[in-house]
């Protein structure tokens, strides 16, 4: 019990601790591919600290909601991230919410962020909120059909159970899982506002989505929101890793050494994913906003196709 609690807390701190590092790694990869030296890996930590130390400038017309939302968004994302197995399954509180609830938690974070974008009453905030609402409406159903696929393969929507099932050798190579993986990657790109859906580095007015929504934030509020965004990236990478590349994941009741090995492997996987994301982002162009529905819609179709194959061919097992 105590050990489990310790590992749960360790995981929760781990995801926060590595989140800026992962973002730094993606940025560094992209910089190197552009033949720039780029900032050091720990630059995101410095940015966060610098932001947190500054005074917060809040727009005149902002309500209490505006100052409340960053913490809420951060909390929802953190709770969701704490429920995704990173290096060990069977976390102490993993039964308190399943994968559908994790999606809904992220949906809650998006909902409140969209409200914050509308709060000050500027045109850019509304623009960001409106587009974010569209992307959410596309990505959430895609995510749900991916959950259907996973739940049908593993017989559970509980992420720990799914991961434990994936580690066990009786999965086999299912086409549906392949489709779900592709769909999940697309959804992850869209949800995290990465290229080709949104550009996290842009501050050009008309191409911003996420950045437009949080345009009015500054100081500590901005730091918290940025950290939540980094956390979300870690969450999605962990999700993909724990379901589709689960090797090395410590299953419940594993020894402490196994868990430490799992943690090490997890960091390696995270680093690989970060580099892969950097390479992918450098090799592709951002889409027009109204191309995004096609892109994410394709993920929805793919996830649905995977689920459909399983629903229909389940009698074959």
């Amino acid at each position, binding site marked *: 019990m105590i050990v489990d609690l310790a590992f749960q807390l360790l995981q929760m701190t781990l995801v926060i601790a590595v989140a800026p590092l992962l973002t730094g790694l993606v940025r560094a990869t992209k910089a190197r591919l552009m033949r720039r030296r780029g900032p050091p890996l720990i630059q995101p930590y410095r940015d966060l600290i610098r932001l947190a*130390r500054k*005074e*917060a400038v*809040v*727009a*005149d*017309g902002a*309500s209490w909601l505006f100052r409340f939302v960053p*913490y809420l968004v*951060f*909390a929802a994302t*953190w*709770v969701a991230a704490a429920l995704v197995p990173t290096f060990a399954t069977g976390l102490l509180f993993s*039964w*308190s*919410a*399943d994968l*559908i*609830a994790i999606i*809904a*938690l992220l*949906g*809650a974070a998006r*909902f409140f962020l*969209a*409200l914050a*974008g*509308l*709060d*000050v*009453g*500027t*045109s850019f*905030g*509304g623009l960001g*909120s*409106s587009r974010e*609402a*569209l992307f*959410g*409406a*596309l990505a*959430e*159903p895609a995510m*749900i*059909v991916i959950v*259907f696929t996973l739940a*049908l393969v593993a017989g559970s*929507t*509980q992420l720990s*159970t799914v991961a434990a099932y994936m580690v066990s050798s009786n999965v086999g190579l299912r086409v549906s899982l392949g489709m779900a993986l592709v769909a999940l990657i697309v959804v992850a790109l869209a949800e995290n506002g990465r290229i080709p859906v949104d550009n996290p580095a842009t501050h050009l007015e008309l191409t911003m989505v996420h950045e437009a929504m949080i*345009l009015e934030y500054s100081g*500590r509020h901005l*730091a918290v929101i940025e950290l939540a965004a980094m956390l979300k990236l870690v969450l999605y990478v962990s999700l993909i890793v724990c379901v589709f590349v689960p090797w090395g994941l410590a299953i419940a009741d594993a020894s402490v050494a196994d868990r430490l090995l799992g943690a090490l492997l997890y960091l390696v996987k995270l680093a690989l994913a970060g580099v892969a994301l950097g390479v992918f982002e450098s090799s592709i162009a951002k889409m027009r*906003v109204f191309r995004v*529905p096609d892109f994410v819609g394709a993920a929805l179709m793919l996830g649905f196709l995977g*689920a459909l194959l*399983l*629903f*229909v061919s389940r009698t074959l097992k």
Partner: protein
Amino acid sequence: MSAEALFLSGDAALLGLAVAGGVAARKPFAGTLVYGGALAICAAMLVLALVELLGRTNGETLVLPLGLPWIGARFRVDALSAFFLVVINLGGAAASLYGLGAARHEHSPGRVLPFFPAFLAGMNLVLVASDAYTFLLSWEFMSIASWALVMAHHREGDNARAGYVYLVMASFGTFMLLLSFALLASPAGGYAFDAMRAAPPAPAVAGLAFILALIGAGSKAGIVPLHVWLPLAHPAAPSHVSALMSGVMTKVAVYGFVRIVFDLAGPQGWWWSVPVLMVGAGTALLGVLYALMQHDLKRLLAYHTVENIGIIFIGFGLALAFKWFGMPSAAALAMTAALLHTFNHSLFKSLLFFGAGAVLSATGERDMEHLGGLIHNMPRTAFAFLVGCAAISALPPFNGFVSEWLTFQAILLSPELSSWVLKILAPAVGALLALSAALAAACFAKAFGITFLGRARTDSAKHAHETNRFALAAMFVPAALCLAAGVVPGLFIDALSPAVSDAVSGRMPAQAGIAWLSIAPIAESRSSYNGLLVFLFIAISASLAASVIHRFASNALRRAPAWDCGFPDSSPATQYTAESFAQPIRRVFGGLAFVTREHIDMPEPGETRPARFELTLGDRIWDLIYAPLANSVERAAVELNRLQFLTIRQYLSVVFAALITLLVMLASWP
């Protein structure tokens, strides 16, 4: 005194109140009398219904010598009706509470006061009726009382047309239900529900009765494409009546559907679930798309009722399928999801309509494009409305999420069904459900964001005042219940399990015994959810983050003009509007429901006239179904109009011909 008798005396008291309201409408105390009395009666009946639901599971039939001479009026309260009595009287009590505060602003009390308690009495009577005659009579009474309330402000705007469409559709629905009951009644004329249960009709007849019930009850509930009256009629009534119609009366329709289809007819074919699932999914998606395109706050809420009805019907469709294929626990799960969503929707929809009513009475505006920034002047209303928005958008830890989560869990059981059609249909329905849930979040981000956030777009919004304390109480009670049902859903699931087992003769595993108040519909290893822990985790980590930041980092705060990428002093008109917020979604999904025409009138450089952008949305369903129907009715009417100008001899020959035709039919009858 039996429970049935108690409920009937409550209804009688409500009717008495209606008469008193009619007589004393002009007196200053009339509002307090009617709403206070209705509040007391509803609260008493709520307690009584709760006792019935939790305690006894089976009522006894009470026969009164009313109505048709050889039938009598039968009344019975079983767990199913007790559950719906809870829903209705909770909504009724909240609406009465709101009415206490709103009565002072009512400019024509004579048109509202008598009908409000009568409407409540009608809904209550439907639920306790236990024979077809009483059921239909109460149903029609409920419809007419609500119609009178819709017509209360008949001179304003489009209300007269709304009342007309409502009356036509309500009569049509009752007619369908009448036919359905006629098919279900045994040839000997057994109109009592007991007699119908005892002698179930042949599958083909039952199937027809099921379709008629789906149309009849569905038109009242607002399923697409029979929803057209709903978004016209619900917003037209005074706000607390809108809340009753949207949050509560649709539930009576849902009850009618459950009673007929699950209890009296029973699924008699696997295909029963197919139309229900398709209608449910279509209703959910189209309902939310319609809602997204509205900028009238009350109409948006009314359209959104359509979406929630769709979600409820998805649960019913799954329950029908599971019940037919002999999977009682899965059927119980689906039914629980549907009934819990029924309860939840009555909570948050009432709350949101009260909020819209408070905004309307504070600003005189229903159009969101004329509002904005109300969170500053109406902080409490804004908070309650925000809770309602979060709940209806199915965000954890509120209650809307729990019922949608249960629906998803039920969908995940559908591969076990041994029917190809259902296997393909179920995941499609699941995807549509997820899509409509996500769109609902967008819809309510818009509703709250444009109305309450940003800067005031008009003077009336700028000078709004917080609403009265009755309205606030009416909002905060459902808001608290939304949170409670989301945080400890297990208690609510257990409470409605007698109603579920009445409908599908199966029940979910008891949730009360599970550690930490989790809910686990099938088994904990398969799926579980704990609203309490999620709520606590969010609260703890948010406060942890806030305290860490405030303790170790900067605490300084400065107010400054908005940055907005460096555009200074923009006018409130430059804010995003409701229409522009929904524009991306309209462009992507709108083609499903609308025929959109955009017209841009851009002046040449140098011209001083303003550029104009016009958008017309045509409703496909109206164009495809109702407009041709209305046209053909009109054409037929023009044709028949000639009959008015016949000579006496011609009239006589028409009557004579009709008589001869009937006689010939009689002679040739096999």
